[in-house]
């Protein structure tokens, strides 16, 4: 079968940084071709070249065997090459329906935008992704990350793609959504669409991919049919070494109570939450998308201060009315939306890492840049961040490396309580292992960790206890030994319309 899309000997550099060197890639109709690699390996860059977004310095792109040069995304789209971008390129000020159809709105006979049809078709597409609660007239700026991801996917589906490229489409999605997306992909494949699928989640790859190509440091390590690889062999292709334990959770003796919530509510969003968190403990929070986990974390962190209830740190009630007060109380929060809340992308790595502890790096409120530089260099080393140096702008780093910068930034505050909101979202397996190892290490040192994750295996693997949320309330707290996928899954889903059982939350 002739490949529909073929990249030959592609090389690309950003200034002095070589990102891709002589990469070959081919895509056949009716196949799902997975693209894997560590953070910063060059996956997104390769995709952007295929989509006409970047221009390669060397090499050629063949479409249906013919050499093509795309002047911009528009030309690639005209050929049916459609991309779900990793960083969610949406229009916050516009409605969901419009986001789905911008650039190719349905038109009336008179050539005018047909709003009615646009809303209806958007509705259909979203229904296909099984999100009936997503209002097509809602502004995207008011959607959660997960919903935005759905909109982005719906947008790609709205175009009749011959080549559909999905760059980590499931990064922000929970299990159930992933299922549905994979179904959609299977159907498209059967219709003959060629699909490039990027993900760091192994199980998805094995479930959906026909072939897999691995990139390492901008070089293609090889392309294999999925039947010829195992999880272990893929990992060693990506990382260049073997990684055995994915969730290296060590048992740490439970220390004293670090954080205690008593009946904490944020009117209308989070209701009556009580739990305690101990030194050395990793407390996982599971829940469906929109179950209020992020809101809870941000309430504890003072972003949206609680409207009632009490928060105790080290046994003493603390008023947490602002982020500053939370930091002063020894709380750190790694947000789920790193681009919006975690980082200042236009500023250098160094200034990002020091941002939360600026007041500690100053003398007479003058920033001690020497100490700041050391802090940043240490962070680069400790978290093996791939960056030119501490002066590189964070926006130029790959997603995973950006996440590491956020982690470094918050660990620099030397917190007692660390809240991680989707800490490994969009992170490669190597980095993920590293972050997990780091979490274990931190717990061992006596840190109390609250981890929100939509990846159930991660929650189950890492947590000492699992706290399950449903519709803004606590539905269960499950001990590690009882935490099976079924038990937790049931607590997440159970009685979605019934009132929560009273005792469960306590």
């Amino acid at each position, binding site marked *: 079968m002739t490949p529909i899309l073929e990249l030959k000997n592609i090389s690309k550099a950003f200034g002095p940084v070589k990102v891709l060197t002589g990469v070959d890639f081919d895509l056949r109709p009716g196949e799902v071709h997975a693209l894997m690699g560590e953070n910063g390996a060059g996956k997104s860059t390769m995709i952007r070249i295929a989509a006409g977004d970047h221009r390669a310095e060397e090499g050629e792109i063949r479409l249906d065997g013919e050499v093509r040069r795309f002047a911009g995304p528009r030309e690639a789209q005209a050929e049916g090459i459609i991309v779900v971008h990793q960083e969610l390129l949406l*229009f916050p000020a*516009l409605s969901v329906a419009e986001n789905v159809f911008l650039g190719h709105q349905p038109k009336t006979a008179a050539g005018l935008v047909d709003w009615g049809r646009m809303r209806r078709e958007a509705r259909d597409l979203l229904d296909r992704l099984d999100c009936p609660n997503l209002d097509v007239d809602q502004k995207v700026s008011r959607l959660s990350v997960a919903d935005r991801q759905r909109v982005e996917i719906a947008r790609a589906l709205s175009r009749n793609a011959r080549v559909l490229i999905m760059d980590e489409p499931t990064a922000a999605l929970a299990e159930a959504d992933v299922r549905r997306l994979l179904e959609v992909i299977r159907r498209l494949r059967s219709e003959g669409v060629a699909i490039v699928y990027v993900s760091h989640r192994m199980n998805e790859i094995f479930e959906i991919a026909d072939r897999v190509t691995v990139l390492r440091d901008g070089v293609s390590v090889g392309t294999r049919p999925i039947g010829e690889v195992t999880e272990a062999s893929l990992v060693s292709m990506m990382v260049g070494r073997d990684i055995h334990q994915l969730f290296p959770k060590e048992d740490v003796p439970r220390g004293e109570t670090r954080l205690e919530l008593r009946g904490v509510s944020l009117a209308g969003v989070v209701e009556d939450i009580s739990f305690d968190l101990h030194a050395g403990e990793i407390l996982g929070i599971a829940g469906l998308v929109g179950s209020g986990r992020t809101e809870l974390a941000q309430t504890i962190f003072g972003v949206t201060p609680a409207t009632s209830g009490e928060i105790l740190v080290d046994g003493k009630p603390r008023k947490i009315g602002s982020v500053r007060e939370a930091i002063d109380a020894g709380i750190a929060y790694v947000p789920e939306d790193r681009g919006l809340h975690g980082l200042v992308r236009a500023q250098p790595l160094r200034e990002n890492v020091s941002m939360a502890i600026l007041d500690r790096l100053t003398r007479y409120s003058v920033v001690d840049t020497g100490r700041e530089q050391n802090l940043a260099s240490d962070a680069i080393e400790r978290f093996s961040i791939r960056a030119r140096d501490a002066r590189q702008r964070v926006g130029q780093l790959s997603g995973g490396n950006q996440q590491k910068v956020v982690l470094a930034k918050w660990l620099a505050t030397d917190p007692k309580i660390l809240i991680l909101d989707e800490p490994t979202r969009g992170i490669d397996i190597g980095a993920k292992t590293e972050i997990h190892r780091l979490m274990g290490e931190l717990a061992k040192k006596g840190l109390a960790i609250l981890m929100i994750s939509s990846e159930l295996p991660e929650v189950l693997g890492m947590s000492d206890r699992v706290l399950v949320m449903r519709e803004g309330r606590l539905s269960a707290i499950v001990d590690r030994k009882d935490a099976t996928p079924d038990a937790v899954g049931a607590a997440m889903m159970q009685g979605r319309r019934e009132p929560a059982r009273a005792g469960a939350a306590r």
Partner: protein
Amino acid sequence: MSRRITHALGSLGQEILLVVVILALFAFVGTYNPRFLSENNLTSIFVGNAYIAVAAIGMSLVIISGNIDVSIGALIGVLAVISGLLVTNGYPIWLAWLAPLVLGAAINALVGCLIAYARVPSIIATLAMLSILSGGLITFTGGQWISGLPAGYQLAQFRLLNVPSPVWFMIGMTVLAGFLMRYTTFGRAVYAVGSNPEAARASGISYKATVVKVFAIHGAIGGIAAVLFATQLQVIQSTVPVGLELVIITASVVGGVSILGGVGTVFGSTLAAILFAAIGSSLIFLNVSAYWLRAVQGILILATVLADMARRRRTG
């Protein structure tokens, strides 16, 4: 269905607020002095700021696209003078009416190119244009007023169905632009570009072409405003009213166009321009000491803006 209406109301919130404010003002001043509501005075209010309302339509497009234009006042001045010079030098009247549109579009398309292709931020490009146009205008005219305009040139004094033509222009342009912005792909592209230029690019919308077109249209609309400005009286001033650009921008933003781009409609700016005219007239009718006129105007603008913020917070 009711949800749709809520959304529609939500997106027109500022427009409704303005209508309410205008009606309240009319009711209040009308009670105080019934002459305020005389047909004559209402007409004056609508005519008074018509050229500002027209110019604010173009400005709204520019702001929705995520840009700004501080040179529009100077452009109106230049185009008005050109129109006047054409007609006093014996060119046909229709040409004197049409030339400002074409020239306005051409000049601003150039500015648009500077912004889109050379990546000069719009405020800088237009600050520069402000200097160039206002300086150039004086150099060119030497400060002479243009008088001796032929009969039949005064487009702004024409009436249709006993309604002065500036009002027709104001309403017509508003409806036209409103339609353009909502029902054409170009209009939606303007919102897209203002909301997220990178995403627009990824959706196959050309940022550059859109911005250039927006500025060209804005220039053409500025040309219409200039013709209304030039033809209202028997002389054409060769200077622009001081701070005209700020009045036009204020009309746009008080009308609900978000300065951050991507949000707003053209109806709001027209209502805001009418509101400004109504405020100016009201204060005279209410015998507010003219010394305090501007302070009261400032307070009213501030109050409208704050009310809008409060409303937005309530509706989320």
